[in-house]
């Protein structure tokens, strides 16, 4: 669990040197040394495990290890260090061998480089990373859940199954998610839509919190989430892993299988995930119809020619079906008010069920991507990405006369991407990157619904060009960039007049973005980075043409065809301090000013319909500001006891109307204490435990008090505190090893509701939950 704050890279590993002694068949030695890249000091307590002979040793105070009397043959050596992902090395042992490994072992939030591969580093942008180990150790979570405890990150939820990330107050159309380097397409506009990504297919989830991520398309106004698999390990044998977990709350099972094999002809990786959950339970009652079924599969292929041309292909399919709390399905304002009066939601039943009935969602997302990367020289790379996505979403409501089986919303969206980037390093530490990205989107409603679509059919074509330049002078690194985007939207709307008419719109938008960033290593232990950026985002189709009742929101939403692009200036200042390996501190302040911020404004009009009165919301523009502070610190209390604290503060204001912005994340404080054992514990002659970790964590979420009573139907829920615990360990058997974890969330079974969870109007959030997980690598 603690591992999430770390990432480790083993670089430059292995300088094989050989003694010239001709060894006997079983008289070979393997020895070496592990060194910390940052400090150049030896690393002790690194576990070195020789898989084929089932021998394990730990490095000594000087970082050294030694295996004696090993037979000639093929071996896999696994290096594992607390909090790090395992590093596996394959050797063909013929003689005495020396292996030197350099291990970069740094606290993530203090790092400036995101590991994306050979030369792609994001640099000078505040960022956070979640690594594979965290993904495996939280394998009952969806993508959003994995990043929930990171500073500056919150979740908008609709019940337990649907969640989307909010980074520094921005979400939906304002936050870009790149899955495998491709902007995730889908219906970003809905707060009741999760990103359709299987986190198990990823090895790294990175959150960029800089002023402007110039290199990424998608109308982002600052933050970007990158979800990426790592390259297939250069390892000639078939390897894989199996992850399984069972969660008590919802009686849910998660199964993930990953297989991979490298060959110079073609390297491949296959990743499959299955999930099934039934009704979740709050502290007091079942949340009926909150089950989930999911089946995902991905295939990754890699091939390279002469270390110059690298081609990879990635295809994935994501399919899920999820239920929405039955008692959260209401029609008009009066229903909503009646629902607020209930201590237990309507339709609550005393029995658990795996059944998923209307209201529910069926979502599928297919992605196919081809990437070619060509190193024309050591210092220049050209990269081409072609991708296609197919997103299909069906939402089912409770309807009359058997129509519950007909979706009330049925959208399919096809997207094509074509990206080209060129990067070059020049002399004097100058580097440049330029690129062009094109996205074509075709969004179509299926008329089978028998309901006028909320979002019209449309085509959109986007093309963006960017250039970034960076230079390093001694302790200072500069980066600046410029981006231009063109978007053409062709929307075909249906009016709800009598008779109905088809109205076409053709819009063209041009946006420019600019960035300047500077990072100074003030001392060896302190880094200061400043980031300033201007970005623009044109109104999306939902903001322009929404028209009608948004089911589940109990409101009539109306777009405004007159909306202009919004623009934002964001400044961030980050300070990182790493005085010793036992203490680190990181503070990030940010301020973002929006001109013409597009938002849903509640109108004075209450519209009378045959179903009663509905509040009307219109997309309007105002000037707004969002500012906040993210702090995280980590301290080693003793060699085996480590503490962590994270605090996020955020405030959003509508400057023109002089009132708070709605739906802004409340402040939160997260703390954890982890106890780790060093070395291994022998349970029996054949079974050994190591890297045993016991973690207690606590998350306190403040009440959102920066909001006026008339801005919501009910007051924001009270502050809450959730206590969690987790025990994890590696278990070694003679010929294999696996990892086990047991965790408990909301141990005290606290009854609470979260401000950003729309289900809070109807029901409590989920109560205590125990998860047991197993990870086996082979």
């Amino acid at each position, binding site marked *: 669990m603690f591992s999430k704050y770390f990432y480790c890279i083993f670089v430059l590993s292995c300088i094989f040197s050989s003694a010239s002694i001709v060894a006997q068949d079983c008289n070979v030695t393997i020895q070496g040394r592990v060194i910390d890249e940052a400090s150049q000091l030896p690393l002790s307590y690194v576990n070195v495990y020789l898989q084929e002979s089932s021998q394990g040793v730990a490095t000594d105070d000087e970082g050294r290890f030694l295996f004696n009397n090993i037979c000639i043959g093929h071996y896999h050596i696994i290096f594992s260090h607390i909090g790090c992902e395992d590093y596996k090395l394959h050797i063909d042992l013929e003689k005495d061998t020396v292996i030197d490994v350099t291990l970069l072992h740094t606290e993530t939030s203090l790092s400036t480089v995101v590991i994306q591969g050979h030369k792609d580093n994001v640099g000078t942008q505040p960022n956070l990373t979640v690594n594979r180990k965290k993904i495996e150790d939280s394998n009952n979570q969806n993508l959003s859940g994995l990043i929930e405890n990171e500073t500056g990150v919150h979740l908008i939820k609709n019940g337990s199954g649907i969640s989307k990330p909010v980074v520094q107050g921005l979400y939906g159309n304002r936050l870009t998610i790149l899955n495998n380097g491709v902007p995730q397409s889908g219906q970003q506009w809905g707060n009741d839509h999760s990103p359709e990504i299987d986190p198990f297919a990823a090895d790294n989830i990175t959150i960029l919190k800089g002023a402007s991520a110039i290199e990424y398309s998608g109308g982002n106004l600052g933050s970007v989430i990158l979800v990426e698999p790592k390259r297939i390990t250069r390892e000639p044998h078939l390897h894989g892993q199996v992850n399984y977990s069972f969660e008590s709350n919802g009686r849910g099972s998660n199964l993930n299988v990953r297989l991979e094999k490298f060959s110079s002809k073609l390297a491949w990786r296959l990743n499959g995930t299955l999930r099934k959950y039934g009704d979740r339970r709050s502290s007091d009652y079942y949340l009926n119809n909150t089950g989930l079924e999911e089946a995902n599969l991905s295939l990754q292929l890699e091939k390279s020619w002469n270390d110059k041309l690298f081609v990879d292909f990635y295809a994935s399919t994501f399919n899920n079906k999820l239920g929405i709390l039955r*008692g959260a*399905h*209401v*029609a*008009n304002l*009066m*229903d909503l008010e*009646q*629902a607020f*009066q209930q201590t237990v939601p*309507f*339709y609550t039943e005393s029995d658990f069920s795996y059944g998923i009935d209307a209201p529910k969602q069926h979502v599928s997302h297919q992605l196919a991507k081809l990437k070619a990367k060509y190193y024309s020289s050591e210092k*220049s790379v*050209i990269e*081409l990405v072609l991708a296609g996505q197919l997103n299909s979403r069906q939402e089912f409501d*409770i*309807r*009359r*006369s058997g*129509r519950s089986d007909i979706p009330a919303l049925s959208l399919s969206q096809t997207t*094509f991407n*074509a990206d*080209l980037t*060129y990067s070059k390093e020049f002399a004097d530490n100058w580097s440049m990157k*330029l690129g*062009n990205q*094109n996205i*074509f989107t075709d969004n*179509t*409603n299926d*008329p089978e*619904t*028998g*309901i*006028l*679509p909320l979002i019209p*059919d*449309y*085509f959109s*074509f986007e*093309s963006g*060009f960017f250039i970034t330049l960076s230079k390093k002078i001694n302790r200072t690194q500069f980066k600046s960039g410029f981006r231009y985007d063109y978007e053409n939207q*062709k*929307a*075909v709307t*249906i009016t*709800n*007049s*009598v008779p109905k008419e*088809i109205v076409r719109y053709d819009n063209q938008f041009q946006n420019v973005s600019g960035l300047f960033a500077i990072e100074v290593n003030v001392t060896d232990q302190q880094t200061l980075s400043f980031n300033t950026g201007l970005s623009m985002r044109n109104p999306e189709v939902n903001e322009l043409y929404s028209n009608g*009742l948004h089911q589940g929101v109990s409101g*009539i939403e109306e777009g405004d065809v007159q909306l202009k692009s919004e623009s934002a200036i964001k400044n961030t200042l980050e300070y990182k301090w790493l005085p010793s390996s036992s203490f680190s501190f990181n503070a990030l302040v940010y301020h973002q000013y929006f001109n013409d911020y597009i938002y849903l404004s509640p109108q004075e009009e209450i*519209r*009378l*319909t*045959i*179903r*009663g*009165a*509905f509040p009307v919301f219109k997309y309007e523009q105002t000037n707004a500001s969002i500012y906040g502070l993210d702090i995280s610190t980590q301290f080693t209390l003793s060699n085996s006891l480590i503490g962590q604290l994270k605090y996020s503060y955020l405030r959003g204001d509508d400057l023109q109307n002089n009132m708070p912005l709605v739906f802004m994340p409340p402040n939160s404080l997260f703390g954890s204490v982890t106890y780790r054992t060093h070395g291994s514990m022998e349970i029996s002659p054949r079974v050994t435990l190591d890297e045993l970790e016991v973690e207690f964590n606590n998350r306190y979420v403040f009440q959102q008090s920066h909001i006026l009573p008339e801005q919501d139907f009910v007051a924001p829920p009270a502050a809450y505190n959730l206590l969690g615990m987790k025990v994890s360990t590696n278990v070694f058997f003679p010929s294999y090893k696996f990892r086990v974890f047991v965790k408990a969330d909301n141990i005290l079974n606290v009854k609470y509701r979260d401000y950003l969870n729309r289900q809070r109007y109807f029901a409590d959030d989920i109560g205590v939950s125990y998860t047991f997980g197993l990870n086996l690598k082979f």
Partner: protein
Amino acid sequence: MTKNFLTLTVFLFFSMVFIACEKDDPIIPNEEELITTVNYTLSPANGGNDIVLSFVDLDGDGGSDPIITGGTLAANQLYTGRLDLLNEAESPAESITEEIVEEDEDHQFFFESTVNGMSISYTDQDANGNPVGLNTSIMTGGAATGSIKVILKHEPNKNADGVSDGDDTNAGGETDIQVIFPIDVQ
């Protein structure tokens, strides 16, 4: 190198432009579920002309205001009430009442009157012996003005406290109809 890059860029850009032609006209969905019209026909028990209270909103949730027709009833008179729901956006108009009759266990009308001395009671039942409300009887009191609110709930809990007596507080369910008719009793 840079030249190749530019050529490729231009190629990509134009290949995308050519894809972006016009989007086909969408098929306008057939909103067969829509309820545009509620007619509440009140027939005096001792003969005389029917009074029809109506609420018509042809554009559904759209912007035009609904047309509401109230009625004038005689004092101290018994009426039988019959509700008819129509989808007049279709032609010929489609009866939604039939769908309600087919699924009467999942539907219930609720009536709230602010007219002094008026009482409304159910005169029909579903298969489980619970009220539906398509048929009612209305007894007026003395001269008064006020309104009758008619609510149709889909999937209410008819067994919850007070629901079969016409109180929707514990009913749950979605509101399919909620209309108010102005009433004058003379």
